[in-house]
């Protein structure tokens, strides 16, 4: 992961959702509900991750007749590695962690 790359809070939220079930294919609407991200925010993030090669996509057959096929998403190996790093980095940046680290350093 390049050090200069910064991720938005929303992207990190999405990474967390993917990391909860790293090998599972996920639907857009499910990700939206899980992360509380609106469709207008979620999909541009998915598009960016896909462009970077961190997200793979596929279409699935419709669950029942008369319904359209759905698009599914999963992080690639690169994507998983980066997602873990960003989530870890974000956790370190959290105020509670900083306070803990500061307290540990003083002790």
């Amino acid at each position: 992961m390049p050090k200069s790359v910064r991720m938005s809070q929303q992207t990190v939220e999405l990474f967390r959702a993917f990391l909860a079930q790293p090998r599972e294919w996920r639907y857009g609407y499910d990700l939206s509900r899980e992360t509380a991200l609106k469709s207008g925010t979620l999909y541009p993030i998915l598009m960016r991750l896909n462009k970077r090669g961190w997200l793979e996509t596929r279409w699935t057959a419709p669950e029942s007749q008369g319904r359209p096929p759905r698009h599914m998403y999963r992080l690639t190996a690169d994507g998983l590695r980066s997602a873990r790093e960003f989530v870890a980095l974000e956790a370190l940046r959290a105020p509670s962690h900083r306070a803990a680290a500061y307290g540990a350093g003083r002790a």
Partner: protein
Amino acid sequence: MQPTLAKKLARRLMALALLISPPNSRAWIRAMAAELDYIDGSSKALSWSIGCFGAALKQRFISLLSPGALVIETEGGMSKVAKISAIALVVASALFLFAPTFQQGLKLTAASWHPSDTAWFSKMRALGARAEKNNDAQTLAFVAMQLNGDWESNAGSTAAAEDRALRDNYANEAVRQQPQLTWIYCSLLNRDYLRGQSDPNDALWLAQLQKSDPTNAEVYAVEAAYYAPAHALGWNTAEDRALLVSAPGWLSRMAKAFDSTNYDSYISREADLDRDVWLHRNLDDPSRLFSGTFGYRLWDFANFNLYSKYFLLTTAADAEAKGDLRTAEDDYGKVARLGELMELHGDTDIQTLFGIGLQKSANQHIQAILEKSGNAPAANLLAFQMELEQDIAHRISSQITPAKLESRYQTTDAWLMQLSLLGMAISLALLLSCGGYFALRRVVGFAGLQRVGAALASMGVVATILLFASTIAMYFGYSSYAVALREYLNTSNTRDAYSLLFRFTVLEELPARLYYSFRGVDFWYTVIALGGVIVVWILYRQISRTFRHSAPVQPAA
């Protein structure tokens, strides 16, 4: 089950999102649309589709800002959407040319870069010739006021001498046709005096003016100026008095001015003439309206000020000291009367304030004399009148606030218009380059330069966006000027005219201000060099982006 209204709306919105989305992200929008069928609840579906529409709109916007991605899809040509967008933007920009506000703004902004009287004078000569043919006295008078070629760039030239002869001829013809236009001689004499140029017609004009308006103080003040020693008329110096004492012609004319029973500076008549001819003769340079009128009249104020301060008020004070209260009251009274006339009949706030100032300088002495002579009721009445006048002066002065004065010099709109002009020039240059390249390619046929073509095409799309944005900026930048001009043309209130029209001077002077701020540097070479660097940078950026570009990743179907 029938879909609810919200669900129907959501589907419509989704269809619209698909329509506006750029080709390289359409699959993603389709993916979002597919989810709609799996969402329970109409409001949730509507909210989903709103987000989807926003995302599509954003993608379309991004594709317009970085059209390389959009153009490259068709390997060197422009995609249909890009073509349609570019054409639509050019057509929309071209449509602005039909808006008079835009036309005028563009013309004035462009003209500010090469200030020249030549075009205006030739227009005036043509207008004058037509007016002469049609016996149009009003237009002849207007042209006579405008033809002052000997003032600016062509001073001393044959054209200037010809214009002067033409001006005199038109003025005389206008007055011959409509004797009530005799007042234009006053404006012309004022201009001549300010420019230090006497005219063979001056004596004749003064005589005619005094014959037509014998009670007007202004016409004697104009004549007095011709008898003043050239270096005497400063604003307010004691040395002026010594010089003017030895100028009996000046003294006698100023005495007549202060004995006059009327005051008309003809400023309103000049403004009315300007408006009338402007509206009926389709003139298009607002900066020529009313130009310099106030400046010329300020010299008359100097005359009034000098005569009242160093002659009438002084002689009155001397008489008062000697106990000759009758003479003192008489001389003070002359100053107060002219002040009152200026206050009542002045066309501008400056005249009103000046008139009140004259009255105050005399009335305080008259009040003291009245009190001394035991006429308390008259003294009290005068004190009350002075209070009222002070109130009027205060009200007028309070309207001339620093913020109002500052807004007069405000240059934001002018800068916006100048930047718009620059944007238009750059975008047209880019569009011409692109058009030229593609025309040449069609004729000659360059194989293997598809990517350069793509870069140029994307630059062309950027140019159309820049052209449209510049056009809009020019239109809105000039709209406040257009409103001021309309207000000036539709009102008979001359008092606000200067404020309304001053902004045109600001616009006109902006390039000159820019030029002078760059003095010491060779301005035009700097502008050309900077422009060149910008164009090369844009070209480099576009071409390098095109070569680096890879086809957008599409979700697998």
